[in-house]
């Protein structure tokens, strides 16, 4: 199998999940597409090395995570007052829940947001999130707890404790 075939197979297997992850972090379809393309472009540049990693997909998530908070990108995405309005013709409009949730997630610290997305969208356990982020399991529990509390406050309702346990 050539490097190209190998990369393309990896792309087919993982790009959908990575796009979901990027969409969870950004809430913007166009931004998610761009982040994913950039992450795979970087992977292709160093494919021989990345393909040898134990979990290349985790490496891509790290790249996406870093790019999503990258200062350069933030500058040009004009986070304060000129964030893009990107119509996405091929995709249906997001559900009302998604609009509300993404708006609420905008105000969370990046670590809380990342932990919530890994947990809820990627089905990662606390131990797996800790391994991926390099934090302790206690810290991850704190991120998830505070992230949920932040969302509940932002959404204007009480969130029932223990509605979903991770583990």
């Amino acid at each position, binding site marked *: 199998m050539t490097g*190209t075939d190998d*990369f*393309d197979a990896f792309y087919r297997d993982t*790009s*959908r999940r990575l*796009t*979901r992850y*990027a*969409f*969870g972090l950004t*809430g*913007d*379809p*166009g931004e998610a*597409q761009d982040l*994913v*393309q950039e992450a*795979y*472009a*970087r992977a*292709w*540049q160093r494919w021989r090395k990345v393909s040898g990693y134990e979990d290349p997909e985790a490496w891509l998530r790290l790249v996406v995570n870093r790019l999503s908070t990258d200062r*350069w990108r933030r*500058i*040009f*995405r*004009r986070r*304060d*007052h*000129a*964030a*893009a*309005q*990107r*119509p*996405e013709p*091929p*995709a*249906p*409009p*997001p559900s*009302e*829940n*998604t*609009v*509300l*949730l*993404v*708006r609420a997630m*905008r105000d969370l610290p990046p670590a809380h947001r990342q932990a919530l997305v890994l947990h*809820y*969208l990627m089905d990662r356990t606390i131990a797996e999130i800790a391994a991926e982020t390099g934090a302790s399991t206690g810290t991850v529990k*704190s991120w998830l707890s505070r992230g949920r*509390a932040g*969302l*509940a406050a932002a959404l204007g*309702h*009480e*969130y029932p404790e223990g509605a*979903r346990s991770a583990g």
Partner: protein
Amino acid sequence: MPVDLDEMFADLSRDGDTVPVAPAVAARRRGARRTRNRAVAAALATLLAIAGVGVAAWQRGHRAEPILPATPNSPIRGLEPLGEPLDLGGDRYWSYPAVSEGRVYAVSMPMAAGGDARRNRGVAVAGRTGDILWSTLEDLGDTDIPVPIPGTVLLREAAPQPIMHLLDPATGAERWSLVHELDDDLVFHTDVLVRVHAADGLTEGFDIRTGERLWSAPGGADRPRFNAGIPGGNDVRRWGLSNNEPFSDGYMFQQLTSGRMLIRDVRTGAVRNRIATVLNSQSGLTTVHDGTVFWPVGDEIRAAALGDDSTARVIFTFGPGKGPRGLFGCGAGRVCVGEAADDDEKDSRVVAVDVDAARTLWTAPASFMSRGTARAGRILTGSGRGAALRDDAGRVLYEGPGDIGWIDDGNMLQFQMRPDGKRTTVAVVSAVDGARTVLGEFPSGSSAMGPAGHCAWSAETLACVDGSRLVRYRFTR
């Protein structure tokens, strides 16, 4: 009714799975472009310079549009459409609007998905007439979004090598360009561009109009690891409580590997203050106001006169379990401190401090405290969910939901998405008495980036993008 986060995240996941994914070949092509050598980058820069001349020549026949006469700070009473919407037709749409110096900037993007930035075009439009003044050209490499600062337009080309292009805002002609590394920090001032090399910490200041190197400072053993501009905080675009931004109003901070911090004058490169210790998570709150630098250390806010470290002292101490969330100048001799519990955003407060006396003047609860600014005796704190306007005694003049930003000293623009998410109400809030006047309603579109995200404004003009249409309005007073 309690929130069902499981259900909401399930919806988010389902929506994420409908985002189109480009074929693998697109990523490989992008990666391959990235690995081209610098000779290609140099050739591309030359092409861009030639293209800049061509664009300048093309638009010579366009007379510069006069800037609308401004009556700053008087009450805004309505919106009046400015000409016909600029419609791109069916295959492209507008994004990233910006307004500066009588011009509207936006990016024209192709409808086809795939995120190929080579097909984006930055466009400058005369704010008054809607005439297209200039446009960047396609297929010159991955180009990012034009960002106007007074007197200059910044345009970054991302591949194959990051290049910052500095354009004349009136003509779009390139004045000069800076080839840099992706991990370098850049700080922008109206007169100076500062580059901090990631490789060795070398810090250089360039004349932003000519590219002439004005000053440099070697990185040394204790090299800078985090660099950012210190903004004045009263610009519509720059009102984050965290001053962790690339735009500077004259000073920048450099947090060194050792934890020390330098305050540097971006015009001369001179180090004005050397601060012994700052925490990674707090350095971004550093600010300069009234000739004094302010920074948090642990549970204290400290201050020192610019250029005189011997005057350093504590001006505010947080209560037990509380820490800083924001720091900004809020009047002569005053600084406002955002305070919240270390592990919770509940009970957040804004505290006005008399700097000379190191005394608390007033304290007020602040429900929305992720950003703040002050102008002309008014203090605005807010987040994407809501905002509060106070007078200089801390009395609330206005409090409400939605995004809000300054138009001028007397007016603020407020965007509030309606519950159905389909329409956004645009209103003006008087900074004099907090009165809110609805100006109109716009479609909200499908983006979840925030209701203000598709509009930009100056004291005279409001520009909003709505799919393929760029719509301009004049504030009537």
